[in-house]
């Protein structure tokens, strides 16, 4: 696998959307290619940071009460 192939699969690798065979190929390439490994680490961190930062906060209590009246 070359860098172009690896980058083409990187999103799917990060998102666990590859087949086992593809996954192993990407993993082998990353182990021997520091620039691709850097990009991989960046992608993983980006996904993690976005998740953590956007997954905060709860719905206002008034909204919850209104919905309970509508639903029940």
């Amino acid at each position, binding site marked *: 696998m070359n*860098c*172009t192939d690896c*980058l*083409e699969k*990187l*999103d*799917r690798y990060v*998102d666990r*959307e590859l087949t086992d065979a593809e996954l192993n190929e990407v993993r082998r390439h990353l182990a021997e290619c520091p*620039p691709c490994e*850097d*990009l991989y*680490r*960046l*992608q*993983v*961190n*980006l*996904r993690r*940071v*976005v*998740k*953590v*930062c*956007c*997954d*905060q*906060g*709860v*719905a*206002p209590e008034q*909204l*919850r009460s*209104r*919905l*309970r009246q*509508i*639903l*029940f």
Partner: protein
Amino acid sequence: MVLVAEHAAETEQQDRFAEEAIGHLDTLYRGALRLTRDPARAEDLVQDTYVRALRYQNSYQVGTNMKAWLFAIMRNLFWDRFKGGRPEDVSLDGDGQFALYDTLRDPSAMPEADVLDRIAAEEVVKAVEQLPELHREVVLLVDVEGFAYKEAAEVLGVPIGTVMSRLHRARRQLQKLLYDYARESGIVHSKGDEA
């Protein structure tokens, strides 16, 4: 007596549906906030989502992914109400090609992985909210909610390839937005700045 029993069973089923649906409220509200970027609009959007879900609850198949079903209702409402129609009218996909490779050609455009941890949460949220809606909604579904590509494709009503290309572009935009912010706020210095 049979009618009474039937009615009781219906009520129980209705309550189960309502309980499960309201269990997704915080998640939906956060998604609505990111989509509308406005707390009042987010509340309206979520309330309308639940009203519609209740009306069409027979179309929900028990045991399937209710969060995905609710998100599909919500994003359709969002596009109808706030964006004046179907998102396909506002295509950003262009030729659908992945523009993957310039990051490697220009290493200075790539922040180090741990730089992201030094950026405040509200700046990350702000960057997500700056993405075009078609890209933002994919980030919400895959990165924030953890939907598989197939599930996200079903919520959005697009092929998996479209999910992938939008996600890829969205992440590149996010990298750039956050890197620009990191430079402007002095969290990171580019080689050019040091010269």
